[in-house]
C-alpha cells in the first residue's frame, strides 16, 4: 500500500466577484478588509473575547492535532478545529474576521473534536460562538452561506425539526418514520421485532416524535422572543424573519381558537372551567 501521507486539500474557491475585488485579508493574503469591515471586525473581536463562554471553552492548546484527526470537515475542506482554537486563543481581529467568512461554516458541530481534546477545550462550542456573532452582525458572507438553508431554518424554527413524516418516502427509508415497514439491512427481521428492542417507556416516541404539536411550536416561539433569537436573525435576513413572525402569529391564533373552542365545549359538558393555563 502506498503512503497516503497527506489527503488531498480542497480549497474553497473564490467567487468571480471576490477574485475581481482587491485583496481583503491581511494575514492570510486573501483580501484586504475595507475600513468599515475593519470596524466591524474589531467590534466582533471585542465581543468575542468578552463573551464569558470564551473563558470557559478555550483553556489552552498543545497543538497536538488530535481534534483535527477525527474531524469530518477537515478531511474535505481547508479547515481544522485546531486552527479555529488557535484563532480563538491567539488570533487578532483580522484573523478572526477571516475565519468567520467561510471556515466556521465547514464545521458540522459533531463534537468529535471535543471528545478528542486532551486539554479539555470546547472547540465545537467556540466555533458556534463565532457563528452566533456572524449572524448577530449580519455578515454578508454569512447571509450567502446560509441562503440555501432558508427552508430548513424555517422548518426548524417553526416545528423544531427539519424532517416531517410526510417528507419520508417509504420506498427509500423503509426503517424510518411512523409507517416503517422494514429495513434494507441484511439482518432485517421486520419492524415489529426491531421495535421490541426499544425500551417500552420510550416506545411511544417512534410515533410521537413525528407529530408536530402546536404547543411545542408556541414554546419555541416564546424561547426565540425571550432570548432575542428573532432579533438576531432580523439583521441577517429580514424577509425570512417577517415570514417567521407571520407563521408565529398564525399558530398563536390557531391555538387560541382551539382553546376557546375547547373551553366552550368543556363548559357545555361540566359547567364553568376554573382556570386554564396558557
Amino acid at each position, binding site marked *: *500500500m502506498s503512503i497516503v501521507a*497527506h489527503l488531498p486539500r480542497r480549497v474553497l474557491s473564490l467567487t468571480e466577484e471576490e477574485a475581481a475585488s482587491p485583496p481583503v485579508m491581511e494575514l492570510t493574503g486573501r483580501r484586504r478588509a475595507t475600513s468599515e469591515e475593519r470596524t466591524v471586525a474589531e467590534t466582533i473581536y471585542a465581543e468575542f473575547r468578552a463573551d464569558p463562554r470564551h473563558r470557559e471553552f478555550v483553556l489552552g492548546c*498543545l*497543538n497536538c492535532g*488530535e481534534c483535527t484527526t*477525527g474531524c469530518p470537515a*477537515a478531511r474535505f475542506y481547508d479547515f*481544522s478545529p485546531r486552527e479555529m482554537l488557535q484563532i480563538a486563543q491567539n488570533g487578532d481581529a483580522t484573523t478572526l474576521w477571516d475565519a468567520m467568512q467561510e471556515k466556521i461554516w465547514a464545521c458540522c458541530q459533531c463534537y468529535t473534536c471535543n471528545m*478528542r481534546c486532551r486539554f479539555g477545550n470546547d472547540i465545537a462550542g467556540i466555533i458556534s460562538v463565532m457563528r452566533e456573532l456572524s449572524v448577530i452582525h449580519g455578515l454578508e458572507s454569512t447571509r450567502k452561506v446560509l441562503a440555501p438553508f432558508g427552508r430548513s431554518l424555517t422548518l426548524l424554527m417553526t416545528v423544531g425539526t427539519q424532517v416531517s413524516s410526510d417528507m419520508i418516502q417509504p420506498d427509500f427509508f423503509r426503517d424510518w418514520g411512523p409507517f416503517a415497514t422494514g429495513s434494507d439491512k441484511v439482518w432485517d427481521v421486520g419492524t415489529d421485532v426491531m421495535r421490541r428492542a426499544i425500551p417500552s417507556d420510550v416506545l411511544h416516541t417512534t410515533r410521537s416524535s413525528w407529530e408536530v404539536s402546536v404547543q411545542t411550536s408556541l414554546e419555541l416561539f416564546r424561547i426565540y422572543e425571550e432570548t432575542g433569537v428573532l432579533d438576531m436573525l432580523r439583521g441577517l435576513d429580514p424577509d425570512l424573519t417577517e415570514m417567521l413572525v407571520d407563521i408565529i402569529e398564525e399558530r398563536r391564533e390557531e391555538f387560541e381558537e382551539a382553546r376557546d373552542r375547547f373551553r366552550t365545549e368543556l363548559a357545555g359538558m361540566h359547567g364553568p372551567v376554573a382556570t386554564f393555563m396558557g
Partner: protein
Amino acid sequence: MNPILVLGGGPAGLSAAAELAALGAEALLVEREAYLGGNPKRWHYSLLAPDLRPAEEILGPLLGRVEGSPKVERRLSTTLTKSERLEKGFRVTLKTADTVETREVSAVVLATGFDHFDSRRKFEYGYGRYPDVIDFKELEGMIHDDKVVRPSDGRAPKRIAWILCVGSRDIQVGNPWCCRLGCVVSIKQAVEIRQKHPEIDAWVYYMDIRTYGLWEDLYWKSMQEYGVKFIRGRIGQVTLAEGGAQLLATGEDTILSRPTEVPFDMIVLASGMEPGTGTKEAAGLFGLPVGPEGFLTPRLSDMNPVDSGSPGVYFAGAATGPKAIPDAVTEGMGAALRAFQYARE
C-alpha cells in the same frame, strides 16, 4: 544505631543502600519483587539513554555494591504492612508469603518508584486489541534480545511509528504531567533499530520533543545520522489498514496543517509514568501527603528534594515524579546522607 530502612530496590533504592553501606550504616533493603533493579530490570531495558550503554553496565556495578556488602540486608519478595513511629525511628512489620516479622529502624528512605501508564486506557490506539500496537517498555525487551518482530505474525516490520505522550500531558486520563523519558527513550529506540536494521523506516509523532539538556544531541543525531523521521502532531486513532495486515495511523501533520493517514507494520506507544501502587501504599503507611498527581511530595522540592518533611523519612527516585536513572541515583545518595545524619543525631 538501628538499621535504616530502604523501601524499594530500583536504581534509587540500590543507590541509597550502597551509599549507606559506604557511610558505615546498616541498610535494610526491602523489595516486594523477587529481584532487585526496579523497572529497568523488570522490562529488560536495552541500551540506556543518553549514552547508549547497556543497562547491565549501569545497574551491574550498583547491584554489585549492594549484593557484595555485609552491611546491606536484602529482603526480597517482602512488603511492609505496618509502621509505627517511635521516639527515634519506626517499628515496621515486614511480610513475606509465609512470614511476618517486626523490626525497628532508625530512619526510612522511600524509593518506591513508578508504574507504567496502562495504554489500554487510551482506547483509540488499540493497545490490547491489535497485537502489533505495543508499549515501548515491551520494545525495550525486543531490542535487548534483537528480536524486533511483529507479535501478530513474527515478521520483521518495514515501517514503525512511535506515538509520544501516551497517558502523559492529557487531562482526559487525568495525567497532565510530562513523563520526561518518553521522548529520549523513543528516539533512542528508533536509533538502535536503525543502527541494526537500516531497512526499517522509523517515524516519531510528537507534540514537543523534550530531550532536555545534553540529551538534545541524541535527537539531532537521530535525524542527521540515522534518518529518523519526525512528524509534528499526534496520532488520534489507530485502525486496521485495508486488508488487515497493517495498522493505519490517523492524525494531523500540524506543520502542514493537514490530516494524515499512514500505514505502519508496528506502532509503539511511549506510555507515561504514574505514581506506583507501592508509592501510594508507602504514603499511607507513613501518613504522608501525596500531590494532586499522586506522587510523594517533598516538603521543599527546590531546596531539599529528598526531605519528606516528616522527621526521619526521606525520598529518592521516581516516587516523587518522573525521573531518569542518573537523577534517581543522585537522589538515592542524597536521601542516604540525610537519613544517616538523622539516625546518628
